[in-house]
């Protein structure tokens, strides 16, 4: 058993006693009712379960929740899909995904939003050359499976968000 404390979207949760075998995905969805983080495969193949982990050093990365025990997230600060919009206003990336019609059934979208957001924050710290942009987006998003869209509009939205603020993201 582990005592689980975690910060999610700026809010502190716990302490809660949890089994060591409890997956992070089940902790979010069954214990906390935060079902914006999805369950797609349980094998880290589709990444519809991915959340953002914000590290103390200021870096962030996504992490699947289906194949990681909840206890590995103890003490961490994470962002889920529910935490991107502020006061009902979607983030720049969320707005772009909507306006580009990037998703259809929407089940993979939380994962794409988290991954895309981490990419934006990474590029803001370390921009890439324009010539490397498509490859960079592809490498970042390729872990995410979508069955509806063929990915094209997700990538277009990412590119447009980045190029709309090229000074910040592109060197």
């Amino acid at each position, binding site marked *: 058993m582990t005592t689980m404390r975690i910060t999610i979207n700026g809010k502190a949760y716990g302490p809660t006693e949890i089994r060591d*075998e409890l*997956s992070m995905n089940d902790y979010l969805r069954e214990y906390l009712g935060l079902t914006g983080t999805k369950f797609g495969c*349980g*094998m*880290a*193949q589709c990444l519809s379960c991915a959340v953002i982990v914000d590290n103390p050093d200021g870096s962030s*990365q*996504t*992490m*699947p929740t*289906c*194949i*990681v*025990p909840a206890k*590995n997230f103890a003490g961490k600060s994470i962002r889920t899909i529910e935490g991107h919009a502020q006061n009902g206003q979607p983030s720049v990336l969320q707005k772009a995904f909507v306006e580009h019609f990037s998703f259809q059934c929407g089940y993979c979208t939380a994962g794409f939003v988290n*991954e895309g957001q981490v*990419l934006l924050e*990474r590029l803001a710290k370390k921009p890439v050359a324009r010539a490397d942009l498509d490859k960079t987006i592809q*490498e*970042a*998003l*390729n*872990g995410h499976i979508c069955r509806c869209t063929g990915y094209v509009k997700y990538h277009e939205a990412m590119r447009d968000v980045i190029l709309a603020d090229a000074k910040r993201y592109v060197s």
Partner: protein
Amino acid sequence: MNAATRLGLLVSMTFALALAPAMSVKSAGPTATLATPESFSSIGDTAARSAALFAEAGKVLTSARCVNCHPAGDRPLQTDAGRLHQPPVERGADGFGAVSARCSTCHQGANFDPAGMPGHAHWHLAPREMAWQGKTVGEICVQVKDPARNGGRTLAQIHDHMTNDSLVGWAWAPGYGRASAPGTQKELGALLDAWIKTGAVCPT
């Protein structure tokens, strides 16, 4: 079984291993064992005995548990069948994964059996020069001995790595859904020790 027959068997096994087709990384199965160094004492010729000892150790080195992270290319393999890793991840600049897909993101500090997910604190790919996929036991032997391709290690350091490294040790506690490497890490160490003491001869 008399010594001659056993020798015949061992030699033919070595021969068979040497001729093994490129992709045969057959798992030895959960109950596969390793022979003790003593059981090779009936091989009179020291060089032949040395090669046979390494061939036995080669059962571990060519098992899925090892070859999967010693791939020929830049993509790991997975499962007992040694198929290409899904999702399609790659070694990245440092062998620990691409920027957006670090190995440790999914393969965390320990196995997570509820999901059948293997893990270890240092999960990563062996460098390209240490690729074992598609190689015979003899070729792997030569490679392992070559400082240019074994990370500049002496034979003693090779032995230490194989016997004591905890990532290597993972191969015998690989978690749910995965067959262990044959024998135990200690037994592997004993075989390699005996191999070194008999001149570290490589099987052909």
